[in-house]
């Protein structure tokens, strides 16, 4: 083994050991744990598929899992669609020396306490909230709207807001990397601004869009705070159920099984997205 390899391995050893001990180890542990069962106050350590059978067949868990995916998927699509024009504007329309100021403006809300941001949406959408006060104050409605809060829609809206910067930044980075002379070349070859966007800009921004999709999708599936705050009983998502199993219902092995199932689904969807994106980008 040459000196380079030795130095590299010496350097990587501490962070790798850390990840093995605190990530790989616990992941294996939770998989093992999910095959055990809760026997009232004790844990039965015989391996069993009981938790998985329950997690996958119980209509309640299936509904929750389905809703988590639908909500998170909607959040992802909406957030990326909302984010793209903003990223495009900052990258293509803003003067270069002003770009960092714009990114600064976009990221500031994101550095506010996550919990408080979610809570503030409750204030925005509540019975006596900003939206309803405005509607009644302006005389547009006599009675405040009650469907604004405590449902899946409010979860989608709140999460889209919370994850907007995460979607804007990778798209912005991808747009910045586009050689501007490519766009001029496209115009020179007879495309108009509109077709240039679809034939040149968008395909070249695709890696950023895929990154944005994943960066929003993965954490939102497992989000706990937003459904708990603004979701109401019909806005609950998988993390809330997992948390309940661990803390309140005291069926940790079932919670572990639900975690493993959620992780597998997220992994499959993420890998599927990457695979699909690669296929599509090769196709054009």
């Amino acid at each position, binding site marked *: 083994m040459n000196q*380079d*390899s*030795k*130095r*590299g391995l010496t*350097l*990587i050893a*501490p*962070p*790798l050991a*850390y*990840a093995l001990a*605190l*990530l*790989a*180890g*616990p*992941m294996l*542990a*939770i998989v093992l*744990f999910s095959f055990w069962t809760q026997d009232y106050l004790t844990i039965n350590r015989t391996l069993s598929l009981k938790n998985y059978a329950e997690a996958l067949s119980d209509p309640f868990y299936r509904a929750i899992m389905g809703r988590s995916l639908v909500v998170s998927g909607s959040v992802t699509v909406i957030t990326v669609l909302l984010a793209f*024009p903003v990223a*495009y*504007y900052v990258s293509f*329309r803003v003067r*270069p020396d002003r*770009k*960092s100021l714009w990114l*600064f*403006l*976009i*990221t*500031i*809300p994101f*550095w*506010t*306490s*996550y*919990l*408080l*941001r979610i809570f*503030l*949406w409750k*204030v*925005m959408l509540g019975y006596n909230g*900003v939206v309803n*006060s405005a509607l009644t104050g302006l005389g547009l409605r006599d009675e405040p709207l009650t469907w604004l809060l405590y449902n899946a829609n409010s979860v989608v809206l709140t999460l889209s*807001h919370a994850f907007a910067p995460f979607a804007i*930044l990778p798209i912005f*980075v991808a747009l*910045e990397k586009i050689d501007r002379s490519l766009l001029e070349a496209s115009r020179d070859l007879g495309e108009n601004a509109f077709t240039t966007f679809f034939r040149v800009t968008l395909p070249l921004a695709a890696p950023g869009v895929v990154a944005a999709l994943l960066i929003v999708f993965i954490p939102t*599936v*497992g*989000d706990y*705070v937003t459904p708990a705050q603004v979701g109401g009983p019909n806005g609950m998502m998988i*993390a809330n159920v997992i*948390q309940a199993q661990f803390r309140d219902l005291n069926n940790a092995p079932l919670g572990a099984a639900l*975690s493993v199932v959620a*992780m597998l689904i997220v992994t499959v969807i*993420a890998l599927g997205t990457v695979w699909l994106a690669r296929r599509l980008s090769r196709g054009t």
Partner: protein
Amino acid sequence: MLRTYVIAFLIFLYAPIALLPIFAFNSGSVIAFPLDGFTTDWFAQLGQQTELHAALLNSLFVGVLASILSVLLGLAAARANVRYRFPGKTAAMGLIMVPLVLPEIIVATSLLVVIVRFFDWPLSLWSLIAAHVLICTPFAIAILNASFQALDPALEEASIDLGETRLSTFRLVTLPLVMPGIVAALLISFTISLDEFIIAFFLTGSDVTLPVYIWSTLRFPKLLPVIMALGTIMVVISILILTLAEWNRRRGLRRVGAKDTGGFL
């Protein structure tokens, strides 16, 4: 038209944040419209919340230690990643970066299972620090990777050529040039740790951190105006830290003589 949309989007981004100072200075004890009157009482009351003080100190303790440890691990990993070729590199870096693409609830539950069910250890701030180092390290690596990549390898060779050892070269050349990256990585790690809720919710015992404390107060409307005051102060501090970070980044750019292309993060 695009400009109008972007402005509307910024309003959407800022609308909830704008409520923070409004209710922090509103004398009504209910967080709803219409407003009552102006007061600074809620800020004054911040000084009397001993639980909040304890939670804040816990958060600072966790954040400082977690960010320092993350950046140390991140320095080693980023250096290895950028400068050296070794067997198993892709797999090792892949594993270390996994927390970036893992829902935090998974990290929380798996560590909880290991600590409580397998080892039966008591939960403490240390278990939270360990978990925060795990999730902050990939962010530190991402930033430090860029710093090391921007560093011309010939600079280190020049130093060795001029008689310095590998160690003194690191101190005299490498460290000063990646320092802006280190500062940025510390700030990001610290901020992530300070704001992280779900892992802290699972892994703290009786010593809670600030987000866990805030979470507990959200159920008690009486405490909410004080929390609004706290949130206002936190936003101001965040803006100060961000401004500092931006200043640090520009200084870093000037130092290596690069042109500002506005790449934030």
